[in-house]
């Protein structure tokens, strides 16, 4: 039923944007908000509905870094690597998270799809560098120890939710 709701939502998004090909980027943003990524067949559907070639939609979807064609983890960790954060050791934070999550070269998500780690250019929280954002929550003045703790907290919370769900 979830997929039905999502697909109907996609139709709504396209209608809401007047089937206007100029609104491709807002459409893709809304679709991604729904699916958390851009599924290939939905992009083909979007192209068909807007009367443009799927190659063009693919071109736009791969140009902008906030679009993703791969599903992302439930928790998207984006480590800021803007100048201020970089100077204050953001790549060390990134390394600490990668190590903590046991990600191998070329991997950005954990196998259970709980976490995805990326870097982001600048969150505008330079006064609190180094910073990162987990989904919508921003964390500032971080240390490798602190990010490791944040990951632990999330894992713990998830485990609790899990056992609560089973308990019920």
């Amino acid at each position, binding site marked *: 039923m979830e997929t039905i709701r999502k697909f109907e939502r996609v139709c709504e998004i396209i209608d809401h944007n007047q089937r206007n090909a100029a609104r491709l980027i807002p459409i893709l943003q809304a679709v991604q908000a729904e699916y958390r990524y851009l599924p290939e067949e939905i992009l*083909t*559907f979007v192209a068909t509905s807007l009367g443009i070639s799927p190659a063009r939609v693919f071109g736009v979807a791969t140009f902008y870094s906030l679009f993703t064609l791969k599903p992302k983890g439930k928790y998207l960790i984006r480590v800021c690597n803007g100048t201020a954060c970089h100077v204050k050791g953001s790549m060390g934070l990134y390394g600490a998270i990668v190590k903590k999550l046991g990600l191998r070269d070329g991997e950005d998500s954990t196998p259970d799809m709980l976490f995805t780690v990326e870097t982001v250019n600048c969150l505008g929280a330079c006064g609190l560098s180094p910073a990162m954002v987990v989904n919508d929550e921003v964390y500032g003045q971080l240390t490798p120890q602190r990010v490791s703790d944040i990951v632990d907290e999330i894992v713990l919370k998830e485990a609790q939710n899990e056992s609560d769900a089973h308990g019920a």
Partner: protein
Amino acid sequence: MNGTVIFIDNKEIPIENEQNLLELIRKAGVDLPTFCYHSELSIYGACRLCMVQVEGMGLVPACSTPPTPEMKVSTNTEEIRKMRKIIVELLLANHSQNCPTCQKNTTCQLQALAKRFGITKVRFKNQLREMPPDESSPSLVRDPNKCVLCGDCVRICSEVQSVGAIDFAYRGAQTVVIPSFGKALDQVECVNCGQCARICPTGALTPKSEVDEVWKDIHNPSKVVVAQVAPAVRVAIGEMFGLPSGTTTTGQIAAALRAIGFDKIYDTSFTADLTVLEESGEFIKRVTTGDRIPQFTSCCPAWVKFVEQYYPEFVNHLSSCRSPQQMFGALAKEMLSSELNVKPEDIVVVSIMPCTAKKFEAKRPEFERDGVRDVDHVLTTQEFGRMIEEAGLHFKELGPESFHMPFGFKTGAGVIFGNSGGVSEAVLRYVSEKLTGQKHESYEFTSVRGENGIREAKLSVAGNEFTLAVVSGLGNARRALDRIRSGEAHYDFVEVMACPGGCVGGAGQPVFSDPLVRRQRTKGLYENDRMLELHKSQDNPYIAELYGTVLGEVGSHKAHELLHTSYRTRKRILDEDVSISSGDEKSLDISVCFGTSCFLKGSQKLLHDILGHIRSKGLNARVNVNASFCFEKCDKGPTIKVGSRTIEGCTIEKAIEAIKREGVALAEEVRQNV
């Protein structure tokens, strides 16, 4: 601006109608390098090779700088020299290094520039990320390792052809030109016209070669290898051997084919003559009964695929005539077998074509009888040229020889098929005599000739007014079709060729970028017509004989069997269904078509209602619902598929009824299996 001058390298050059410095610099006789400037495409400004020094402005790209009076331009300064070298080195450092084995070896513009700028060493590290070439298409090979990202192919595919099968994807150093989602070229909406390969400055897009297969058959003693040569080839192949564009080399072609080892040499113009009779016959019938007017020509396989995938409602407007290539294939297999006393499977038909889409056409499932293909191999003009080179023949010096009869005999009408407007003119030459029942002395219908991508002509024949449209370039075809669909335009007959200017400008022809080349080839074909003895297909004695002995009359049953075909609507992109809801293992599949045509006819609401029905009946666990992208029944949408049943013009009532019926059948099947 006219009447003023600019100074290029101190030379005074008058400004006429030039829009940018590059055109003026070329007029001044300086060959300014560029990858991405083409007068037929939008200005892109990416290759940076045309940078020039303008007094007071510094370095500017000539392609996008408009001239102003008294401008002082230098095209060759130390700074410019250094920059050009760096640009070419940068490209080489991100380029496959296997020049000697590249299809474009010696015709590659990157190679030519490296030589021209005296680059003997690349100072940068090679940073190419090797990617596998895409050889899926029957017509084209895409090798990303040789791409310079000039975007010419992307722009010609979308701007000129309105297809957009390839586009840029990713960003920065990761940028590639690729079909959607990185799919193979044969899985997407590419119509195989090959204009991308024609314009590609390097070996990143090339016609797919069948040369080796052809040699193999030639060297196989049990095979009889038969060649057919398309009209446009004869005015272009000479370019590969130093002859001016437009030079007719029919005799040399025959000689070369014979020397290479072809057993029989025929002319596709012969079946073009045959096409004229069949297609005109169909036209007279349709126009007098008002049946599916306008009639569209069907000689161009890229155009046919274009209609099949974008304009399903117009598919039945295409003439049912096979293209001359396929008529030839069918006839050859039918007749030569008994005439030469060989088994049909031992006859190998090789076409020499100006075209890459013909390779795709030859492989269409329709064109095969009892497992034997009508046309076995399609060589482009370029490939044929390479065979001539490989055989060590001095093409220019070959003494002219003649084609074999009967399929080697043609009239001028069959020859001008290679020009945009040629098919229409040939048809008019037939129809005007057929309808009046009189022979005419004159044969030229110059009103359908010309260079515009959409030309209209009104003609009065025996009291009938006909409106014709002659279209070349698929973007123009799209415009024309949209106008027909909206009722803005009315035509009786529409000729479409996918390549601008027609087959003479085909992607299989020797590589060219100057439109003048195409113009000269066009002229060459019209001259050919004038030089020939006969100019009207109906005057071709061998055609008359063919009807007498084999075909009966125009449009006969036998003619239909051999010379006509049918079309289908087709998906643009394969394998892209959206799963909306899935039930248990053994559940009923329901797919709703969301292709453009069905979508416009209300498939969204239909899906919504079907889902509502399923929910209200609690059928969630027992059905799988998909949104599909085309059942190829576009004229009668919205279309859905329930189980194995396809329902056209579907309403919610029809859908519910089908779900009930198929659901019961499925339940029965499950019960029996248990």
